[in-house]
């Protein structure tokens, strides 16, 4: 190789290398390696259930374009369920409501916001006592607080209810009658510490999948966890469980009593715990049960519980004696940690308060309480059923911070805090949800004393039981008026007289409270579509219009408007004028106004500005000497709860008997008011599915979720189907005493009911199962039983 050859070879090599590099570059043009740095990420709690997962919301060009699980969030640790991953899509359904609309001659016509607010205010002005405000467990804390102040403090009207009445009311009465204060003592950390997870009629794999995965992941890693599904139909949860105990509907009462009886029979109850921290209680008159009942002795308790032997309860419940003994063995074992969870199975129950009390009772009796992993914890279905409906108290008998309208002292505290004249707050509780809508649907001259209802953030036209009676009957009554604020057309807006377009989720700022006492805050990230506006603004604007019309309740003692916001300089900001609504952080102002009210029941919620940097904090949140804020995981336990007196170990400091004791209740097994009979031989159960959230208003607009679950169906046992000559996919008619509905039969489907049971999900607005459900409710919590009524089945 001579010099020229070598140089030529070198040059060729150099060119080849450079060409290879050029080819490599061309495969990676600069624009393709673009890093998505124009996506802004911020945190928010998920819009759906009460688990309270934190998501990261990716916003680009004013639109939500991506969602990610928040890895630092203690609740979900980066995981979400399929609904959570697709929560961004709920904002962009094509039929978003974008203009206020008034029904004229049966047709909804666009009007301006000024007209809409004026119409609403004048309806209220005409008959303030006949107005009802129906909100939700999805209302934010500031929204609920504003509703409460407007209604109870402004209009002296207690007809305010949240849809949580249909969902959580029995859990509330269970907690209050047991501990004297609402909300669970344990938290999700129990799932990380328990040896046994006992689910009472709770399909966690579909309804709280992120929490369920938390347990499954532990078992996967080899932790000692036994998962027990106590249910009335085989579900995805049963498939993951170590034990599936299938019982007959309503007999959960007897099963809980049987566990208590075994503890006493074997002498395996925690004598020291019970003697120090508990007392026994029962209803004075089982025909007329009330919240607080009367004290009974231990011997009396023992005597009443005696009949619930495993043999007797086995006959009632369908569980074997061995299965009942298994449950007894677990609670009798002091060396393991047991966490009980429940949701609608126990709450939507004509004896909802009773079964809640009994489950707390067996945990107290056995001493499986107050230690990490030892807790009875109810799970909520809505993101702020706890934070808003329960803690802010938008129920018809409550005031903020666990106060009651019936208590003069509590009313006085609120009147003082709100700077209202003494006596402004009405001492009589308003109508509970079922009654509120019954009164709307009853002619005025026949005692229907409600003529106008304003609905926010919920869909009663879909989710009330026995809809023909409780909702649709309103259309017959000319003088009744329904105002519905929503984001999409729903079964509720279908017959509404005034429809208001609302901002949704990250189109507004908000604060939620999840199932484990965790308060969570987020900021507005994108603009709502069209004329859609915040529900909070609507409440304030209607109140302001009433103020202008001369309603004296809209003024405080000094003659100022009850919703007075000021800027940094102390000047009033006219937040009722939408052009100025965002001049101050109204959310922060209302939340901080509410915060001191939470101290009475030691529910100290965290300051707004602290929450703005956290993925939620569990109350009581107490300031430390170093200025930091500490959350509380286990309430009533000295090792964690700062309000327990030192040396007491456990203290129920809001005891109904004022002696630091929790109540162990005796409640008998009672039959359901509509058990199957010869005419209607099936149990009909309704519920949810993984992909859809409640009435499907949001999730049915997300293609991935609708694609997975496009319509409702009816799960039928193959033998029951065969008996009426029906195969998989055939049309069937289900009828109850209230009507009938056509559905497709699904045999061996996602859930597998035993013979004699039907299951229908309620998300599908084209197949409203609530047209035929029963409106019977728990006498204490007033929560209806959507889980049981008698039905029959035939081929279509």
């Amino acid at each position, binding site marked *: 190789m001579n010099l020229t050859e070598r140089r030529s070879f070198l040059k060729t090599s150099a060119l080849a290398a450079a060409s290879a590099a050029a080819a490599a570059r061309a495969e990676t043009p600069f624009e393709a390696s673009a890093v998505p740095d124009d996506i802004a990420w911020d945190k928010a709690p998920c819009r759906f259930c009460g688990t309270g997962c934190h998501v990261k919301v990716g916003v680009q060009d004013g639109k939500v374009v991506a969602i990610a699980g928040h890895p630092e969030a203690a609740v979900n640790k980066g995981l979400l369920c399929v609904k959570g991953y697709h929560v961004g899509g709920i904002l962009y359904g094509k039929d978003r409501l974008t203009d206020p609309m008034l029904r004229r001659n049966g047709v909804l016509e666009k009007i301006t916001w000024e007209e809409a607010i004026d119409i609403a205010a004048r309806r209220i002005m005409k008959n303030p006592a006949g107005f009802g405000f129906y909100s939700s467990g999805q209302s934010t804390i500031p929204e609920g607080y504003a509703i409460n102040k407007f209604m109870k403090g402004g209009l002296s009207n207690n007809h305010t209810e949240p849809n949580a009445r249909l969902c959580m009311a029995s859990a509330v009465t269970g907690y209050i009658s047991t501990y004297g204060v609402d909300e669970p003592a344990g938290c999700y950390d129990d799932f990380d510490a328990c040896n046994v997870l006992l689910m009472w009629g709770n399909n966690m794999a579909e309804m709280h999948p992120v929490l*369920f995965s938390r347990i499954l992941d532990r078992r996967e890693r080899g932790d000692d966890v036994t998962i027990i599904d106590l249910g009335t139909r085989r579900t995805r949860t049963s498939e993951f469980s170590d034990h599936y105990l299938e019982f007959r509907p309503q007999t959960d009462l007897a099963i809980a009593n049987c566990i208590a009886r075994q503890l006493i029979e074997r002498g395996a109850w925690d004598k020291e715990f019970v003697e120090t921290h508990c007392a026994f209680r029962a209803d004075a008159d089982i025909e007329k049960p009330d919240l607080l009942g009367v004290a009974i002795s231990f011997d009396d308790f023992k005597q009443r519980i005696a009949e619930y032997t495993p043999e007797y309860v086995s006959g009632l419940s369908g569980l074997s004696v061995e299965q009942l003994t298994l449950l007894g063995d677990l609670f009798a074992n002091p060396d393991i940690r047991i966490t009980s969870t429940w949701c609608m199975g126990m709450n939507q129950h004509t004896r909802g308060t009773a079964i809640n009390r009994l489950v707390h009772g067996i945990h107290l009796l056995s001493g499986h309480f107050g230690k990490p992993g030892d807790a009875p914890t109810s799970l909520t279905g809505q993101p702020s059923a706890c934070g808003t409906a329960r803690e802010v108290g938008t129920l018809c008998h409550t005031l903020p911070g666990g106060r009651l309208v019936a208590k003069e002292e509590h009313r006085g505290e609120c009147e003082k805090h709100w700077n209202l004249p003494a006596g402004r707050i009405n001492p009589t509780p308003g109508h509970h949800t079922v009654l509120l809508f019954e009164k709307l649907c009853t002619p005025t001259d026949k005692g229907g004393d409600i003529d106008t209802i304003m609905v926010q953030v919920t869909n009663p036209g879909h989710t009330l039981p026995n809809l023909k009676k409780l909702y649709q009957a309103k259309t017959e009554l000319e003088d009744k008026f329904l105002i519905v604020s929503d984001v999409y057309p729903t079964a509720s807006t279908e017959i509404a007289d005034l429809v208001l377009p609302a901002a949704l989720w990250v189109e507004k700022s908000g604060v939620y409270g999840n199932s484990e006492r965790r308060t969570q805050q987020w900021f507005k990230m994108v603009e709502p579509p069209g004329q859609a506006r915040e529900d909070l603004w609507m409440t304030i604007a209607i109140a302001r219009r009433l103020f202008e019309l001369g309603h004296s309740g809209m003024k405080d003692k000094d003659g100022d408007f009850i919703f007075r916001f000021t800027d940094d300089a102390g000047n009033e900001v006219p937040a009722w004028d939408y052009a100025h609504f965002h001049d101050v952080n109204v959310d922060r102002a209302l939340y901080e106004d509410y915060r001191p009210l939470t101290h009475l029941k030691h529910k100290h919620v965290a300051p707004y500005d602290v929450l703005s940097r956290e993925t939620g904090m569990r109350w009581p949140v107490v300031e430390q000497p170093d200025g930091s804020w500490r959350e509380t995981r286990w309430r009533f336990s000295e090792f964690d709860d700062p309000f327990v007196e030192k040396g007491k170990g456990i203290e129920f400091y809001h005891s109904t008997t004022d002696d630091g004791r929790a109540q162990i209740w005796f409640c008998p097994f009672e039959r359901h008011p509509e058990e199957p009979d010869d005419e209607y031989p099936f149990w009909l159960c309704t519920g949810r599915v993984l992909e859809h959230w409640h009435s499907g208003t949001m999730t049915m607009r997300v293609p991935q979720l609708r694609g997975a679950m496009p319509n409702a169906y009816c799960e039928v046992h193959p033998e029951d189907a065969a008996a009426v000559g029906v195969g998989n996919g055939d049309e069937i008619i289900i009828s109850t005493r209230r009507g009938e509905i056509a559905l497709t039969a699904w045999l061996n489907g996602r859930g597998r009911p035993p013979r004699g049971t039907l299951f229908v999900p309620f998300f599908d607005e084209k197949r409203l199962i609530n047209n035929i459900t029963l409106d019977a409710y728990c006498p204490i919590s007033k929560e209806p039983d959507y889980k049981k009524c008698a039905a029959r089945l035939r081929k279509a």
Partner: protein
Amino acid sequence: MDNHEVETYFRQRRKTLAVVFLMIGMLAVSGFFMGMRQTERQVTRGQLPAAEIPAFTPAEIPGAPKYPEIATAEIPDAPKYPEIAATDWLANRDWKFTLANLPRAAAPPADLSPPTEEEAAVAIERRRSLRAYSGAPPVVPHAIDSLRSTACMSCHSEAGNLVIGGKRPPEISHPWITNCTSCHVPADGLRQLTAAEETRLHVENEFLGKASAGKGSRAYPTAPPTMPHPVWMRQNCMACHGPGREQAIRTSHPERRNCLQCHAPNAAFDNRETYSTNPKPPIDPTVSDQP
């Protein structure tokens, strides 16, 4: 040329040779990385003509259950059509073993020629169609057992580096999460139970999800590319980049398991909160602007 001459020649030209060897190495490495960047192109590849799929015999799969040992008496026959309505829906010979009987074979060596633009476009579109946005859990493009997710892993596991019935199932990249169906739902659920469209609620959606960022960037042609996606939920790199996976994104050095040592994650893919649009006020629990 004797030995001395050879040594002299190499000594004299060692610089040149060094450069030549360096260049050859560089070409190989950059060729590999060019391959690495051809993301997502072969998702639909790997389908072999049926004739090339070796016949399945259970013995070929180590640890495979020995189905024939189950007493055939336990397995009822499938019901006849007229009997279906009146018959229990039980396991039967005709469907129970379908999966096990599908022909399966180890994944063949991948095609080394880069996919054409059209093939790449088809593959990228198919991947996109299964996701609401980049980072969303993909929907399931086939029917599933609606009750249990135990069956998922029989194809979507590490052992799933097999072509089963002509398809290569993607491997799970987060195997510690076992409740598969809580995030992955069928694209077309219910099937025969889906009611006629006019009787269903059907609303169009205008959500426009974040697109895939495509290829990673590299500082210079032979540098290891950065990761163009978050690590979260994709911690098992080998699920997509391992041996037997798609040629376009398959690693040439599977023996090096500490992937993040060289392939840097990018902060922009960590979904970090920016707080830019919502300046947060300083922490001041004593609030002055109470209403």
